[in-house]
């Protein structure tokens, strides 16, 4: 294992170190997906690329939205918009645990002083029709990451199996930096000419979105958008595999999957607005899962999944 590194000074430094670390381990450093998602797993670089036979290694930051978690920026740990750091490597390398521990050292966690534990946690995403086995990783009793070996996505068995690491960046950074309230966390270097805290950047937006999510979002419009996304997804996937204009085999798995992402996020918004009853909830989740499954079915037919015509 590498020597522990010096203590980072800001949120962004922790992100940068993770980026550098995983770049040095051979991951493609991707950018966030340009849509609203509930977690880094929804990025097609994870959901879709975990399928098929082709090797893959990617790492990225993913802004994530969970409307029901909004607390107007007042709760020290809860946000409706936050960041996840996501790593997906396929096939999962035999030393993935060691690689992961190396990343903790890279962000300044001294293995000689802390107690790191792998505690059973089976991961399941009912909306993605996905599940895997792994752990939540504890550092001194705090959950700092999710570590999962994907077994199934969109109803398809993963072969080979991908190893997925998800870091809740705010929580991890607060721990490393010794911050009690997320809004007090230095975003950039506190010594810089214009130091900014997390609160300087996000306190106001947390308030704005919390109000919109909980009380203002037009539920009728959202319900309509949900149905439209569902229809569009089906419409995309109902097209012929061969594009009549170019004559090429073009299966539009990604555009279809965008509609699935959209439906999933709209469902989360509707949930936050409290207009989904307990029984309806299951039905909505089932509808999103059906979309995810169809997109997975389409993706495994593509070249990116290793399909050979």
């Amino acid at each position, binding site marked *: *294992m590498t020597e522990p590194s010096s203590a980072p000074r800001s949120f962004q430094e922790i992100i940068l170190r993770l980026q550098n670390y995983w770049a040095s381990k051979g991951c493609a450093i991707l950018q966030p997906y340009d849509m609203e998602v509930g977690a880094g797993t929804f990025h097609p670089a994870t959901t879709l690329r975990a399928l098929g036979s082709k090797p893959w290694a990617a790492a990225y930051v993913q802004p994530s939205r969970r409307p029901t978690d909004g607390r107007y920026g007042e709760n020290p740990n809860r946000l409706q918009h936050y960041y996840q750091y996501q790593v997906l490597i396929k096939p*999962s390398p035999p030393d993935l645990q060691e690689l992961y521990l190396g990343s903790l050292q890279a962000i300044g966690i001294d293995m*000689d002083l*802390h107690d790191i534990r792998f505690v059973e946690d089976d991961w399941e995403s009912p909306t993605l029709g996905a599940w895997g086995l792994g752990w939540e990783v504890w550092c*001194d009793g*705090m959950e700092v990451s999710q570590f999962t070996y994907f077994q199934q996505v969109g109803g398809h068995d993963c*072969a080979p199996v991908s190893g997925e690491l998800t870091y809740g960046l705010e929580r991890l950074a607060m721990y490393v930096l010794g911050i009690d309230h997320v809004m007090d966390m230095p975003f950039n270097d506190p010594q810089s000419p214009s130091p900014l805290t997390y609160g300087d950047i996000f306190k106001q937006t947390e308030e704005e979105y919390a109000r919109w999510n909980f009380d203002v979002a037009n539920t009728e419009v959202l319900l309509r958008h949900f149905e439209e996304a569902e229809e569009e997804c089906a419409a995309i996937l109902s097209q012929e595999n061969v594009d009549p204009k170019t004559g090429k085999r073009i299966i539009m798995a990604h555009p279809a999957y965008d509609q699935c992402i959209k439906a999933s996020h709209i469902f989360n918004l509707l949930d936050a607005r409290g207009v989904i009853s307990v029984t309806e909830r299951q039905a909505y989740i089932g509808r999103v899962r059906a979309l995810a499954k169809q997109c997975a079915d389409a993706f495994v037919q593509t070249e990116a999944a290793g399909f050979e015509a």
Partner: protein
Amino acid sequence: MPDLLIELFSEEIPARMQTRAGEDLKKRITDGLVEAGLTYAHAHALTTPRRLTLAVEGLLAESPTIREERKGPKVGAPEKAIEGFLRGAGISRDQLEERDTPKGAVYFATIEKPGRPAAEIVAEVLADTIRNFPWPKSMRWGSSSLRWVRPLHSILCILSDEAGAQVVPMEIDGITAGDTTEGHRFMAPGRFAVTGFEDYAAKLKRAFVVLSPEERAEHIWNDAQNMAFAAGLEVVEDKGLLAEVAGLVEWPVVLMGQIDDEFLDLPPEVLQTSMKEHQKFFSVRNPATGRIERFITVANRETTDNGATILAGNQKVLSARLADAKFFWENDLRVAKADITQWTRALENVTFHNKLGTQAQRIDRIAALARELATVTGADPDQAEKAARLAKADLSSEMVYEFPELQGLMGRYYIEAAGEDAAVAAVAQEHYSPLGPSDDVPTAPLSVTVALADKLDTLTGFWAIDEKPTGSKDPFALRRAALGVTRLILNNDLRMNLNRFFDAQLVRAEAASNEALHDEHVAELLDEIADHGVFGAAFRAVMEKLAGDEAGKHQVTDFLHLERKVPDTSEDLLTFFHDRLKVFLRDEGIRHDVIDACIAMDGNDDLNLLVKRARALNVVIATEDGENLVQGFKRANNILTQAEEKDGVEYSFGADLKFAETDSEKALFAALDQAQAKIAPALKAEDFPAAMAAMAALRGPIDAFFEDVQVNSDNAVLRRNRLNLLSQIRQICSSVADLTKIEG
């Protein structure tokens, strides 16, 4: 004789699976070895979060040679038959042996299966065990096709004797067995070789791994107790947590930390649950005040700062968790004090079961039943209804949302905070009881009432929608609910006819799933059931009204559906109760046929009466008199039944003493009169032991009667009189229990 050492080294195995996995490893390997002819002296399995280890001592170095003799064709049999035999036995012609048998000379073959070296057998058995290991959940990883609970990294497999250790050659999915293992992940990384179990255990300990889960648990418990004791405190015992924590560490280091003052006023159960569920901390209590004041956490390593950083981190996480709990507690208290009924109203949006409506509807049904039950439990009906309406309010609270296992208990705190009676508040916690066969049964009338109503509603509801337990499947814990009702009735000595309550609650459940049944008519029907106590009469009364009423006419069909369904369902549910009762009373040593004999009697939906009768009958039947009486009764009954069938009449006219010929016949007349005089009032007073004793006293006179008297006399008058006498025996005995059901 060599010893075998196996270690399967993997990524972290879930704590809850380790013990079972150790047992499975031991069983599968040793079974496989023995089956292949390798016996052993002793085997034991050990587990840590990263390894399953099995040590087998005194294994045979090779399996014994097996000689098998086979009888072949006769000497001189066709050549083809002999060749076929040779092929089958795998030997050549010159190895055949001729032997004389009574049937002439016959060829015999002796086949020798040579023994195989232990290493070969171990390799096969181990590979098979790994491929078919019964993990509750297993996974694949990388590009491997092997399944294990988490990625399997290495296999140590050696056979050792005085000459030294030898690696068992085997390979599975790219993992080759060797003689090396690893120490503690952080404190002693790197691989090392071992020569046998003792060397392995000793080297592991030097590499900061305690191999035995019991040793780790003991170490944790001792250190925890000592630390608490030194501070004048005590650790709250929790065996499940101890086993789990021992499965999370290879090198346990016990640390005790502080709980911030601001959280010390939280209910102790909240502190305990939060610390246990989220952090796997033990609670440390002040014995003087009963308050939880500190926590114990178990780290997986030693550090240069003696755990200071680890403890500070854990303390911080705990504070964040408890801040949440405190927030829930204070918010909940505010809501409860303002208007706790809003929580019950919120349950209108929570589905209980899609065919049985919402939680709020269920609570309405329970409240209505609780009111009716109050008449038999002696509770105040208004209080019972109120308690039933509040008992599940806490399901809407934030605390119970976060910690479902605190349901009921939180309700008790909140209902009291809302200013209700302590007895009403206690219902929230106690109405779920009894949960298991050894759980305490509530005794407070209000709690008993709502506990009964809750369970009866569950049972009738699922019976109404035909979701009954089948085989080992009982997803709604209906067997437990029926046992709960039974224990509530028996322990509290309650007298109630279940049928009436089944009927009422089945009608309510039907009304929940069938909107066509108008509330007002359902209410009338329920009123009638309450008045008449039986469904049939109540139903006819309502049907008459409906038929004569213009507005009610179109509902006749729906109500006819009820008439078809409710009595049968109710009967079926009662049979389920009787079956459960048999299981319950079996532990008391009461025979199932004794219970059947009592179930056959009237009033069998009064469980208390039924059990009293069964207990008395069970006692009497175990006596010599009782046993013989049953025989006498059966004899009388058989003769009588045959005669009745043959003659086509019923001999129930009554016998006349003046036709009695012998002394024993006369004595039986007298004995029956005496028994009757005792039994009737005893039954009326439900003094079953007295009734049974009086019945058993008939044994002598009945036996003597059969000894001396020929029932089927040629004299028709005498015969009729004697049959009428037997009928009296039957009638008297049958008033006590249906003795035809008694076996033997």
